C-alpha cells in the first residue's frame, strides 16, 4: 500500500510540480487550493503526510496546521510548511507549538521535499 500525501497551495503551478515529484516517488497525492478545502479532504481521507504553503487566502499554513492538529487522526501526522518568508528561523517554535516537522523556503527543490518526506515516513530511499 502506498502512502497518501496532501499538497495545499494556492499557487496551482507549484502544487502541480510537487505533486508530479511525489507521484513519481510512488505516493498517492491530492491537491487542495486552500486551507478550507484541505480540511474537508483530510476529514474524508487519512493522509500520511501534509505539505502546505504558508501564505494562502482563507487560512494560512500555520492556521491549517493548528486546525489539523485538532482532528483526531492528525495529532501525529507529519506536517511540512513551504514559505516565501524566512520562517525557517522560527522552526523550533513551530515544532514545539504545532509539531511541524520541517520548513522549506521558496524557491525549493521538489526532490529535497520528496527525500524529506521519505525520511519522515521511514521509507527506504
Amino acid at each position: 500500500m502506498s502512502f497518501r500525501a496532501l499538497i495545499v497551495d494556492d499557487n496551482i503551478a507549484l502544487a502541480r510540480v510537487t505533486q508530479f515529484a511525489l507521484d513519481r516517488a510512488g505516493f498517492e497525492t491530492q491537491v487542495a487550493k486552500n486551507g478550507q478545502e484541505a480540511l474537508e479532504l483530510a476529514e474524508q481521507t487519512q493522509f500520511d503526510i501534509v505539505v502546505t504553503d504558508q501564505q494562502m487566502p482563507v487560512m494560512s499554513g500555520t492556521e491549517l496546521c493548528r486546525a489539523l492538529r485538532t482532528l483526531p487522526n492528525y495529532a501525529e501526522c507529519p506536517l511540512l510548511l513551504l514559505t516565501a518568508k524566512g520562517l525557517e528561523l522560527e522552526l523550533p517554535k513551530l515544532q514545539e507549538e504545532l509539531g511541524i516537522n520541517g520548513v522549506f523556503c521558496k524557491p525549493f527543490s521538489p526532490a529535497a521535499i520528496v527525500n524529506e518526506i521519505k525520511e519522515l515516513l521511514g521509507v527506504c530511499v
Partner: protein
Amino acid sequence: MKVCRPNLGLPRKVVSYYLLFCIIAICWLAVGVLVTTHTVLSSQTIGSCLSKLDKLSAAIELEYLRSGTEHLQPLLMRAKSEARLNFCGIVSNDGVYCSHTREELVGQTPLEHGGHYHQSEGVKGIRYRDSNGAQVCEYRWPLMVNHEPIGTLHIGVVEPEMWQTLAEVAPLAPLAILVPLALVGAGGYVISRMTSPLSEISKQLQQVAALAPGSAEEITDIKVCDAVSLGWNRLVALMKRLQKSPDNYTLEEKILEATEARRANQDRVILENITDGVAMTDVEGRITFANRAVAALLGEAATEGATITDLLAEIDENSKEWTAPSNEGHASVCELHRKGHLSERIIRISRQKVNGNQRSGQIWCLRDVTQQKLSEKMRDQFIDTATHELRTPLSNIKAYAETLITEDEINVEQQKEFCNIINSEVTRLARFVDDLLSISSMEMGSLSIDRQKVDTARMFSEVFDKVEPLMQQKRIAFVKELPEKLTEIKLDKDKIVAVLVNLLGNAAKYTPAGGRVTLRVKLDQNTLEFAVADTGVGIAAEELPKVFDKFFRSADSRVQEEVGTGLGLSLAQEVVEMHGGEISVESVLNQGSTFLVSIPLQGVA
C-alpha cells in the same frame, strides 16, 4: 553665602539687657552661696564641739575619781586640740579654775562676759566677743561624781568669721565665677549672631524713619543668611523698582527692555507656531506653558494649570507606567495611542528636566507620528509583498526546471507544458521588475514620459478592458460619460492608461458591492480632463492632503483590509505633473470620493 541658623527675633539691645540681667543674677547667686556656706560652717563647728562635750565630761569625771584634780590638765589639752576649742577649763566648787588649757588662769576666777545668754538641758551658753575681737561661744557643763557636784566644765569655741569663710572658698572662686560668665558670654554671642539680620533691619528702618517720605535711597541690601534677610532684600528690590518710574529710565535701559520684550514675544510666536507640541510643567506636573499644537494633540483640556500626567492617562492608560515617578529619568521617550472615532493617532512624547535639575519642572515635546508609523508599516508591507512577488515565480521556475533536469521519462507534452509554465513565470517576474524600476525611477526623480500620438478611443477601451472585470466581480455600476468626438492627442499613453486604471481600480476597490463608479471625460483642443467619482468609503478630511504621499495608506480599517502598496496615487500624481497637468481630490467620508485630472494639450511638441 553665609548661612546662619534661624534667629529668635531679638534685637541687639534686648540681648544686651538680657546679658546684664544674667550677670547680676550670677552675682546674687554667688553672695547667697557664700552666706549659706558661712552659716553651715559655723553650725558645723559648734555642733562638733558640743557633741564631744558629753564624752569629755565623762572622761574628766573618771579621771577625777582616779586621781583627783592632779592630772586633768593633759586631758583638757588633748580635748582642745581634738575638738579645735578656743579654750577649756574646769571651775571647782570654790569658784576658781582648778585646771585650764591656759595655765596662767589656774586659780583665777572665770570672767563673766556680758553677751547673749541661753540655757538648755543643763548647759549654759554665752556668746560674746573676746579681747581679740573674735566671736566666742562659751558653754558651761556641770560635772558630777556620785551625784555630788565637783565643779563646772567651761569650753570656748571661736565661730568662724565671714572673711575666714571667704578665704576658704577663695581658691574655687575663679572657676565658680568664670564658668557661668563664659557660658553667658557664649550664649550672648550666639544670640547676637542669630539676631544680626534683625538688628541690621532695625538700623535701616531707623534710617528710613529719619528720611523724607517716599525716599528709599538709603535702604540697602543686607547679607543674606536666612529667610528674614532674603525677604528684606526682596522688599528693598521691590521698593527701588517702584521708586524708579519709567521717566527715570535711561535710553539704554529703554532699548534693552524693548529688545527683551520683543525677543520674548518672538520666542513665544515661534513656540506657538511650530507643529510639534511643546509644553512646560512645574515640579508638581502642572502645565505652566503649552503651545497650540499641544491642545491639538492632547485635546482642549491641555491648558495651563492642568496636570499633564492625568491628560496623558486619559488618552492612553499605558502612559501611567511611563510617567510614574519611579520611572523618571529612565525612558525619556514614549508613544501614546490616541483613539479617535475612526482612526487612531500615535503621539510620540519626550520629556526632559529643565536644566537637568531634579527639583525643577520638565519640558515635554509631542509629535504626531501617525503618518510616519503608517509609512513605515506600508514600507514593510511593500517589502513583504515584493518578496512574495519575487519568490513565487522564482520557486515555480526552479521547481519546474529542476524537474525537467532530474526526472526521466517525461513525455513531450509534459515537457512543453513545463516550459510554458517557466516562460509565463519569467514574464510575470519581468513585469514585476519593471514595476519596481518605475517606482525606483519615481523615487529618484528620473521618471520620464514619452508623448506620442494617441488614439483616444483606443486608449479608453484599453482602460475599460482592464477595469471592467473588477467592476463586474463586485457588481458595481460603471457609468462612462465620454465626449462624442474622441480626437487624437499627444500623451504618454502607457502611463496615462496606468493612471486611469489606478484611479478606476481604487474606486472599484474601495466602493462596496452594488455601488457606482462614474468616469467623466472632457476633451477639447487645449485640455484633456477626466473625473473618477465613486460612492465608496470616502477619505477623512484630515487625511485628504496626504493621499498623494508615497506609501500613504488611510488608517480607515476598510482601506487597510484591501491589498495595496500606497504607491499608486503617488505614481499617478507624478505622471500627471510630468505632463504639466494637475490632479486633485474631493471627498466626503462614507459618501465617496472624486479624483479630478486635467492635462494640458496645447504647446506640446
